[in-house]
């Protein structure tokens, strides 16, 4: 089915990824990355987060352009809805990470993708963040992700792509495993 001759192009440079894997095995210090964001409160529940530079391969790096994200809450929260809610950004990150992984794994497995559509839903009981019930956690009580994928592959091969992508996903790891978070303050 996945013949050698067929040219699969999911727009992923697998050779570069595999090359990076090999290079970073030899030079583990270059594999230490720092991801960064800065955020500034605008008004009410509205803030703006900027993503620009990061550290990796032993040096400061820059995105091709500066990205800005408005973060707010919807009007039913008596807010102005200038952007997606913070928890929705978690879904943005998870979908982005899993889809990137699916494309990479598919390329590596010689599977041509035609469409990859994800639908995400996270349950959350507001009694947590509103302090109504201590037994209710603040965050999601679960996340459901559904992928609808059109590709030259069997149902099981597609399921294996999505499973492998989860196995190697940074955001999946961040949301499924505990992470030590340090928040400090200073007076401006």
């Amino acid at each position, binding site marked *: 089915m996945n013949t050698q001759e067929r040219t699969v192009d999911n727009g992923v440079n697998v050779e570069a990824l595999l090359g990076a894997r090999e290079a970073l095995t030899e030079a583990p210090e270059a594999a230490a990355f720092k991801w960064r964001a800065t955020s500034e409160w605008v008004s009410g529940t509205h803030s703006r987060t900027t993503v620009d530079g990061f550290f990796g391969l032993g040096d400061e790096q820059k995105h091709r352009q500066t990205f800005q994200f408005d973060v707010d809450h919807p009007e039913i929260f008596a807010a102005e809805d200038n952007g997606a809610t913070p928890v929705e950004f978690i879904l943005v990150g998870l979908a982005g990470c899993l889809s990137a992984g699916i494309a990479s794994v598919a390329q590596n497995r010689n599977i041509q993708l035609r469409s990859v559509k994800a639908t995400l839903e996270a349950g959350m009981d507001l009694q947590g963040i509103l302090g109504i019930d201590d037994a209710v956690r603040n965050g999601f009580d*679960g996340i459901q992700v559904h992928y609808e994928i059109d590709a030259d592959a069997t149902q099981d091969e597609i*399921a*294996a792509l999505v*499973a492998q992508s*989860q*196995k190697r996903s940074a955001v999946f790891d961040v949301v*499924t495993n*505990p992470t030590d978070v340090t928040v400090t303050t200073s007076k401006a």
Partner: protein
Amino acid sequence: MSHRAQRQQAGIADVIVIGAGHSGLAMSRALSLRSIDHVVLERGEVANSWRTERWDSLRLLTPNWMSRLPGYRYDGNDPDGYMTVAEVVEFVAGYAARIAAPVITRTAVTQVERVADGYRVSTTRGDWLCRALVLASGAFNVPAIPRLADGIPPDVTQLTAQRYRNPSQIDDGAVLVVGASATGLQLAQEIRQSGRQVMLAVGEHVRMPRVYRGRDVQWWMLASGILDQRIEDTDDPLRARRVPSPQLVGTPERATLDLNALQAQGVEIAGRLAGVRDGKALFSGSLRNVCALADLKMNRLLDAFDEWADENGITAEVGPAERYAPTDVGPSPRLDCELGKEIKTIVWATGFKPDYSWLQVPAFDRRGNLKHDRGIVGAPGLYVLGLPYLRRRKSSFIHGAGDDVLELSAHLAGHLDLTARRHVPGMATG
């Protein structure tokens, strides 16, 4: 023993083999067939780990008919059964006797250093010199316990699979078994059967039925050529060597032991143990995915068996193709549990590492793993045997020793020839 006595010369041999388990003994036989002078140094008795580091109910994961070593095989009347620990000890000790292996028992190696033309092997009973050295001291010497164990509250008893013998060792109260390989599942089942509540923390694992289409799954693995797959033919050798042992158990009933079977017996499954915080064990939310990965992988393996059966015209000799229910993860697996209040004991079934702390030879990578190319260590005349997927998938199995030893003993003989020729006649070292 005085310091002077410890540094005493105990002997000289062309080759020293460290470890009188099945691998070291198979190498000994190969060296004897080539008339190569050697001794086998053993810290305890033959098959020492089997005598001292295994739990009571353990049986081999391979059926008796697969227990074979060069020039020796199981010849009892239960070829489809699985050896108990005592039977394995008897089997390996019987091999040592059959081949008249030059084993020196109760001699623990304390240090190995490179010297001109070979190695000095210091032991609790004097020093040996040799030109070539074979490490056959096993792959499962020290338990690999995750660092997060440091955060476990002191009122929780911790036990490794190496120290575990039977449930009577364990306090009353609930038990958390960490690890879902053959070991973790077997211990979880046994402890549950003793009447205790058991939680099992499940990371990546390998699921297999014990019997498939009427034949032992190991028969399929061997017959279809999977166990003979070579490490150089794998996509990712490092990962291939890290794959945990499949969820199997050897019982007279030839029962399948998987997460569904365990849950039916009352064991609760949770995700990988991901952290300890505020006296709670935190489990990863990846349980669904690791189970999906294992189910998909098992089905690919069974597909390969079916395909092989078709191609080899044996479909009529075996039972009909089967597929198994996906692993049941339930509606909402637990993400934490109280340590101390709820869980009284943690059993670590998180794997083992070989112990080469005595090997003072620059042959280790950045992470302290022994560097070798299919058993040929990057130091002259140094070899290693019996590690998972050393040369082939079967390398750490009893029946896997034969082929590896055949090839590595030939390489070793070549090394001895080559180094002997470099010496001026009359100056050859022993």
